[in-house]
């Protein structure tokens, strides 16, 4: 038996016991083979150097993107009052820290970028400029707070300790433990980034905290609409044993822009 047949009803009706045994072996060997490589399904890569993150990208998220602030509007377009933490699953320590927010003190301490760290910056109204820094590193610049995030597809050796921490990235595709069936892996996919080792910061501008132990997991999705527009969706999970009772989830959208016309870098503001 040279290949695993597609198990349609007609095929099932005519296969013999011996063929069934061969099928089981076939599936089992497929599972073992899959377990050896992430994503499963694709045929053996052609000889030569492994593809870079840039060449392997299933989606293109580079370019200028402007945020569409249609959710949590009051928390994003204005600075909410101290203690207004609606929707964020803070634990008692998190609530206590939020109630102690003092923007003047942050400014004095030179920490006015606390809300522009990796846990909060993507929620800031503004624009993103995403480029390939090199073949295995994506760079995300924000005009709000003039921040730069680096997403590494290969270990960078950086120690973190700044607002944006250390982000490790990989491409994700929908895949099955049984392989992808006929036709290989599906087109498209998403970018997954996991960030650690950052300075403590704010999830929202009014001092809703995350700690240095937080882990920020993000999925970047690109949707190309029939009307020709493109959206970037960033799904974010913040896990923080210090301040959160459960993970904090947001999904933030951006619309593709043709150029840098709207790009308007501004410094961090604690107020």
């Amino acid at each position, binding site marked *: 038996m040279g290949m695993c047949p597609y198990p*349609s*009803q007609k095929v099932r009706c005519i296969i013999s016991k011996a063929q069934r045994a061969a099928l089981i072996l076939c599936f089992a060997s497929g599972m073992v083979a899959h377990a050896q490589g992430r994503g499963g399904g694709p045929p053996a890569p052609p000889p030569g150097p492994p593809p870079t993150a840039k060449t392997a990208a*299933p*989606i293109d998220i580079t370019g200028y993107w*402007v*945020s*569409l*602030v*249609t*959710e*949590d*509007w*009051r928390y994003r*377009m*204005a600075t*909410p*009052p101290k203690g207004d933490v*609606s*929707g*964020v*699953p803070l634990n008692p320590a998190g609530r206590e820290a939020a109630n102690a927010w003092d923007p003047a003190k942050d400014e004095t301490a030179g920490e006015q970028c606390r809300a522009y760290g990796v846990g909060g910056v993507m929620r800031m*109204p*503004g*624009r993103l400029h995403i480029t390939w820094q090199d073949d295995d590193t994506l760079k995300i610049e924000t005009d*709000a707070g003039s921040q730069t995030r680096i997403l590494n597809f290969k270990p960078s050796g950086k120690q973190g300790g700044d607002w944006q921490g250390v982000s490790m990235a990989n491409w*994700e*595709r*929908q895949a099955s433990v049984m392989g*992808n*069936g006929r*036709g290989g892996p*599906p*087109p*498209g*996919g*998403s970018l*997954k980034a996991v960030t650690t080792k950052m300075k403590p910061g704010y999830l929202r501008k009014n001092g809703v905290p995350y700690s240095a132990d937080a882990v920020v997991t993000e*999925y970047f*999705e690109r*949707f190309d*609409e*029939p009307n020709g527009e493109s*959206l970037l*969706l960033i*799904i974010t*999970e913040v896990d923080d044993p210090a301040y959160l009772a459960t993970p*904090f*989830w*947001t*999904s933030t*959208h951006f*619309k593709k822009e043709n150029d840098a016309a*709207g790009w*308007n870098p501004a410094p961090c503001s604690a107020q």
Partner: protein
Amino acid sequence: MKRTNKGVILSGLLITGVWLSGQTAPRAAAAEESPGFDLSGYWTPAMHEDALERGGGSELGDYAGFALNEAGRLWALSYDASRVTLKHHQCDAYVAPYQMRATGNFRMWEERDPHDQRVVAIHVWAQTTEGHRVIWMDGRPHPPAWAPHTFRGFSTGRFVGDALVVETSHMKQGWLRRNGTPESDQATLLEYFVRHGDHLTNTTIVTDPVFLTEPEVRSNDYFRQVVDHHGWLYACDDGEQILDRAPDKVPNYLFGEQPFAQEFARVYKLPLISGVGGAESMYPEFIAKLKSATDEDGLARMTPVPGRPSETSRAVDPEPHDGEIHVLPIRNNVYMLVGDGGNIVVQVGDQGPFVVDTGTGALAGKTIAAIKKLSDRPVQFIANTSFRADHTGGNVKVRASGLDPSLPGSFFSNQFADAGQGATIMAHQNTQNHMDELKMPAEGAPSDTFLEDRRRKFHNGDSIELFWEPNAVTDGDSIVHFRSADVIVTGDIFTTTEYPFIDVKNGGSVQGEIKALNDILNRTVYEHEEDGGTLVVPGHGYLSNEHEVVEYRDMVVIIRDRVRNMINKGATLEQVKAARLTADYDTRYGKSTGPWTTDMFVEAVYRGLK
């Protein structure tokens, strides 16, 4: 109270799917489509974003982040939450994008063809409102423009890349936000579902030519749960909430008099423009505007812009204009024929067709051919809802198609010269009078008229009633109720295409129009959460149920209230017209040319109240 899901599921399928499209689904998949992924299971929404809006309720006057145009903004500001105390609004369901954002758990499952195991549909069941969405995955087309709308609409899906992409049309009018932020019945929805482990994200993109200047993009996150949440039922029956309220009372605020319009801004110490910024409020540049805006900037957006020309309808024309007659099965033995001006209804059976209205007559031959496909019997009766030419233009030819040579042998052939010579045309006497005045052909005039409130007929196994609605569009209008099929044909008392054609010269009046719309609502019953139930055929437009009628009734009452308020203050007709009192409805119903313009409607309302 125990509710059965079976009926709900059946109605969902009936209304949104099988019955509407009635076509074999093509099987071909687009080249870019992917094999798909599993969405089945129990899902709980993560309400971390917009927690207050989605939980306790949105702030009054907060439309921030919505690309509302002037009409949408004014519609929202006119909205009084007490409107949900009205019997016909108490059980309003949620339109699809709001449903996906609602509190409560969700269950999703696949429906597969038992023979080839292809995915036929993905079902979504929401706890709140028993919201059942069916996403057809088999490539079937969306229904035509004259097909009914439901709260969840008609959805088709396909897997593209790592997303399930869903397109939805045919939704009813509903909410984008619970504080009255509107979504019109012309809105369409594009969705992307993506799954990462036990986390599902649904991005909704609402395009609404009536109320939005840009698509509204939002997203909803859900966690997968292992355990059945139970509590999947959501019983709702309407009842009397406010006694002794006049039937023509619809809670609403006059322009500029919404008492809570400034609440959101004042409570959170924001500029007044915050909640009414429209599309600008979605973009980062709006932060600078917040810093410089004055109260006047905000207040200016809370009333119609003075001196601006009236907007015109941006709704899809529901009539085909292709020179053909299209047949839409309604229920049992009743059909709607679309294509020749006013809608035509045909009931068929052993006793021969009973026809309501005959269109303009331009396509009478094709109308008769379509009727013959439904029944080989001669047409027995024609009921006219009005004398207007787009409802009676085909009378002569359709009547003639009722020629029955077997009848001259009857007793009556000795009494009446025209016995068996054609169908009997029924209408209110005033309709006949108007047709005589207009010297319309005698062969097409009603021969069986009635003078008082009701004419009845048992035909083809159904009880058919004609109710006179005096002084609505004219003084001779009737609605026709097929009681067993539970279908009401309204003539031009109700349309989905324009403001009511109140013909003051021929006895129409706004008060009579409101009464007539309420009379229709007094005879309708919804099946589930304002979907289904009694089906209503408008004079023009798509097949409806009571929800479309009640939104239309609300509109007429609200505009009546505004005009009356100005009359009470001594306003002239010109001042009333200049005040743009229909500004929140013009993008849906407005016309600046043709036989029935917005100006004509406002004048008819004014003259009816003066």
